């Protein structure tokens, strides 16, 4: 057996969950009696604990109230309830856009909210307050209710994190921090890389640990992941959101710094290059759009309580907090002085790297996945040396040109280690499916990024 199955399907305290409000997902750690603020609502999560994931709640007076099955109308139900009873027009000839059709003022609506009226009740008043509602067509009425439902409904649900949702959350929140890695591309990296239990995968990413987490999920605690990283520590903030991964599933993760690859490749042990890192400051490169992509990761077992506590500012604050926490050290063995502590950590890290180096040095890894903001060609050409023959390699980039350079390099390289090199992008289109009104979504995400993939072969001249 690979792993002690996905533990509980009930909402637990102290677990990171995803709050789902309207179209937004948000990771939050649930702690009893601790207030959660999100999207203009605030509440304590106590009532949710022990209920099944997926439960829906309404927020009233700072508490969660379970929406019972029979009351649960959802968006669809609300729409049909509010549009079926009223008459409707055949077309829009009577609609005048003068902004005067709504009788309720902002203040009145605000007051209703303050009085603790439910979203449903407010929605009903808003619809009744609209003098032009009956002049709208049926479709237009539905659209109107839908829009108002989004604004006034306080319904939220609590969902168990999975790679699918975590990837969507990061992509929606700040695509630049995950190299614009869209869900369909992430899914292709995992498939084309043949990532599965018992495989040993080399990962080089600057996607906050999203790709690493997804790979760990697909390994199920069997096999090995060596995350090759830039800087002094790998960035793995996203791994905290992969709350469904067990200790065992996380334990297959090793790490090795990029700046020591030279040692492995030339076989010169011992001499280690120390990077000149500016003290205290997190490493950043100059690539555009990577504000907040701290290279200061943290130990995955070291829980950061407040990471998912507040609204969108978490990156900056969490970074600061981590720097403050730095000297504290995660282990109970309190060292007598700071130097000793530093030395102990250094030795620990060396041990970790040695383990990873031993795995890499077999030069028979089962796959290589690259998704980073750096120029990929030299990284690819170095890491490919650790991959066995007849294994998949997948390189993702937001841009096409660097991958073309990889392609060129692979084609020109004397030894010819790559077979059937392919470069592609994907086209992902969502559809609105409604009776009589099915069509592609009006706006689509046009940037998939690019993938280069091939199979390694034995050196042939």
């Amino acid at each position: 057996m690979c792993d002690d199955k996905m533990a509980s399907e009930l909402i637990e305290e102290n677990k990171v969950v995803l709050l789902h409000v309207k179209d937004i997902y948000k990771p939050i750690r649930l702690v009893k009696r601790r207030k959660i603020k999100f999207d203009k609502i605030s509440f304590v999560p106590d009532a949710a604990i022990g209920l099944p994931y997926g439960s829906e709640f309404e927020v009233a007076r700072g508490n969660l109230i379970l929406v019972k099955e029979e009351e649960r109308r959802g968006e669809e139900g609300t729409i049909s309830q509010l549009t079926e009873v009223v008459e409707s027009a055949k077309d829009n000839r009577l609609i005048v856009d003068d902004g005067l059709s709504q009788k309720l003022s902002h203040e009145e609506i605000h007051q209703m909210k303050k009085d603790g009226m439910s979203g449903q009740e407010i929605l009903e008043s808003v619809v009744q307050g609209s003098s032009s509602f009956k002049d709208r067509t049926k479709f237009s009425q539905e659209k109107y209710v839908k829009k108002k439902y989004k604004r006034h409904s306080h319904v939220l649900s609590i969902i168990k994190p999975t790679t699918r949702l975590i990837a969507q959350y990061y992509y929606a929140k700040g695509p630049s921090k995950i190299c614009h890695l869209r869900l369909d591309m992430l899914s292709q990296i995992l498939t084309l890389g043949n990532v599965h239990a018992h495989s040993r995968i080399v990962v080089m990413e600057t996607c906050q640990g999203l790709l690493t987490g997804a790979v760990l999920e697909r390994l199920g605690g069997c096999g090995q992941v060596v995350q090759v990283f830039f800087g002094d520590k790998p960035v793995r903030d996203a791994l905290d959101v992969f709350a469904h991964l067990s200790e065992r599933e996380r334990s297959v993760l090793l790490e090795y710094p990029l700046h020591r690859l030279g040692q492995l490749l030339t076989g010169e042990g011992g001499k280690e290059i120390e990077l000149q890192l500016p003290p205290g400051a997190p490493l950043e490169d100059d690539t555009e759009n990577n504000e907040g992509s701290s290279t200061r990761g943290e130990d995955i077992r070291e829980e950061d309580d407040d990471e998912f506590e507040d609204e969108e500012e978490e990156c900056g604050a969490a970074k600061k907090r981590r720097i403050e926490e730095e000297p504290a050290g995660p282990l109970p063995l309190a060292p007598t002085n700071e130097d000793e502590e530093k030395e102990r950590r250094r030795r620990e890290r060396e041990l970790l790297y040695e383990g990873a180096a031993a795995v890499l040095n077999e030069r028979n890894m089962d796959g290589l996945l690259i998704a980073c903001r750096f120029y990929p060609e030299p990284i690819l050409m170095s890491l490919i040396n650790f991959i066995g023959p007849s294994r998949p390699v997948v390189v993702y980039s937001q841009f096409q040109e660097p991958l073309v350079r990889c392609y060129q390099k692979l084609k020109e390289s004397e030894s010819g280690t790559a077979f059937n090199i392919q470069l592609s992008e994907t086209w992902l289109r969502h559809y609105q499916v409604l009776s009589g009104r099915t069509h592609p979504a009006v706006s689509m995400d046009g940037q998939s990024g690019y993938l280069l993939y091939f199979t390694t072969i034995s050196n042939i001249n």
Partner: protein
Amino acid sequence: MSFLKYKAAIEEGDTVIICRGRERLIPVIVKRGGVTQVLGGAILHDKLIGVEFGSKVYTSNNKGWVIVLHPTPELWTLSLPHRTQILYSTDISMITMQLELRPGSTVCECGTGSGSLSHAIARTIAPDGHLFTFEFHEKRSQIAKDEFEAHGLSHIVTVKCSDVCQEGFGLEDRVDAVFLDLPNPWEAISSAKTAIKRTGGRICSFSPCIEQVQKTCEELNKLGFKDIGVMECLLRPFDVRPCVFNIPNMGSNVDHSTDKSKSTKLTQPIASSETIWTCAQRRTIPGHTGFLTFATLLHKDIVSGPSTVDQI
């Protein structure tokens, strides 16, 4: 032979994928004394045994060569014998991700078809998950069964020959995910709901026609599935190659070449040339595979909609 674990060298009885350049991949079961004809000549199986996967192997006349690869579900998808239309890796990737498959997942698939998706699912849910795959065509289901056996997957795949729309899956509260590739997928959704675990799960329906999607969505909605989403995902491949662009002679004062050494006499119509690696789009690509409809079934304690009783 197992698709689930890489091994170094070829043994008798292994399935290997042989290929040459961009030509079609050929799956071969290695037998002593066996011969496989390729464009460049004949590959003697005896020469394959003991060879490392990923090596170049020459034909008996030493004129041609092939590369022998370790099978993976993706290479299998590109080389398998087609008995039906098959799903390709782009859709398969999306399906695997959206159905939230991982080691240990239990999955229902209907129908098995040529087994392209089945192999990919089996790979992902191994070593302790399980795939129940249903196919109403008896011969196809038997061939699929034999293939899973040969590919070391039979311990995690159960092939059943039955018509799910008529007979249901015959499973209750057992699976994490259901995949439907049927002409009338809506007829199988109630049975799928029964098959999904008490704690909930995901469903996917693959349909080429929008009318099928429409009916499927109505049924999903009626039975209390949430988070219904429809999408299509297309692969756009590029042909990458070096391309030589000539620079015409534009008169003696103008020389746009970056490589001055290549500049020729200024009386020639072509002054010089540049070589650039280009990405060309292909003129004909698959423009439509099918619509993917996904939905979530929440914990059965909190799902509304008519209760589902499956006739088995």
